[in-house]
């Protein structure tokens, strides 16, 4: 007796072509800028500066233009596999840490955003912006070193979990600059 196919044959996702270029300019490190984006705000194209300007003017995007910091690339989360597969990759726990040198006047900002569960996170490297697809948790700290030449800055840890890695897009020009929230970007 023939059985109808119960399990579809193969569960592999479609693998796109791999890109290579011996002479590609490498992307340099450091989280040099950051942003918090309200979860309700959706990008069609994260490289389009007009979308960012709309978000900033509507106070749905908060830009932190000059930072330093790093992103850990994610700690893998593995779950028990099935069949002859011992484990499978079910996602990642991600952590980005950045420093914000504008200290005194941002205490209220960081005290507020640490309580929010409704913001995604974007970080900028040399020429690329990476935007999380899920909301993040924000853990700000303002440590003080025993060194009279050190600077007191905001040290921010951003954590999130996601199945996929952050995707890089060309950074939108003129967005990650210092400006005030009057609704206009000069």
């Amino acid at each position: 007796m023939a059985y109808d196919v119960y399990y579809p044959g193969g569960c592999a996702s479609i693998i796109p072509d791999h890109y290579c270029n011996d002479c590609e300019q490498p992307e340099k490190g450091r989280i040099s800028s950051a942003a918090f984006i309200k979860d309700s705000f959706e990008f069609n194209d994260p490289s389009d500066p007009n979308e960012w300007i709309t978000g900033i003017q509507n106070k749905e995007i908060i830009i932190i233009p000059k930072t330093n910091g790093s992103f850990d690339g994610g700690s893998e989360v593995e779950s028990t596999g099935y069949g002859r597969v011992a484990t499978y990759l079910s996602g990642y726990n991600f952590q980005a840490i950045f420093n914000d040198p504008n200290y005194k006047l941002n205490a209220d900002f960081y005290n507020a955003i640490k309580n929010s569960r409704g913001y995604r996170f974007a970080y900028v490297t040399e020429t690329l912006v990476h935007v999380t697809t899920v909301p993040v948790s924000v853990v700000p700290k303002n440590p003080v070193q025993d060194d009279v030449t050190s600077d007191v800055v905001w040290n921010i840890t951003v954590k999130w979990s996601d199945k996929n890695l952050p995707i890089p897009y060309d950074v939108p020009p003129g967005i990650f600059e210092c400006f005030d929230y009057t609704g206009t970007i000069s």
Partner: protein
Amino acid sequence: MKINDVTLSINENLKDVFSKYPGIVFHGIAETVLKKQGTVEMYMPALFLDSGDYQYVGIDNTFTMIGYHKLNRLSTSFQLNSVKSYGRKEGIYTNNYSLSLFLYYDRKKIKLFPDEVYLKIISALQNGMKIKGFNSVIARINEVILNSQQVFQKEYKGVDFKLPVEKSILEIGYTVEGTFDKDCLDNCRC
């Protein structure tokens, strides 16, 4: 952002330290200028003014104490990947200024030995100066020349007066280390 701002801040501290003595004056960064009287060449310290003129700031009996600074040397270093650099800046710059503070005083009116004056000056070179344009400023004293005749002959070559024994002139060598972000330089005087 100028080293002269640092010397002016030091001068304010010097005025506080020596405030109980009347007739004290402290000037900024002076230069050695050449003055000719006939065939005689005399060197003396003077301030270069915005007008293009020079103002003599050296020994003057109308004052109990006169101080001025001289900038001897400036070197710059760059610290790559400093934790104090943000955005796409690769690091921060540090300027090391080598200066001398020349202090002339009347020992009949300020009854202090030169080494006692020197200790008071050490207290005036406080760290933690907030100078516009500098991320941090650290001043350190390196040495002092207490031999008044030696300092006088160095500063006043060829002059036709001598330093009386009751007058002292010290040269205090000190270093100022200033770190800065080159994108935050204040070039408004340009």
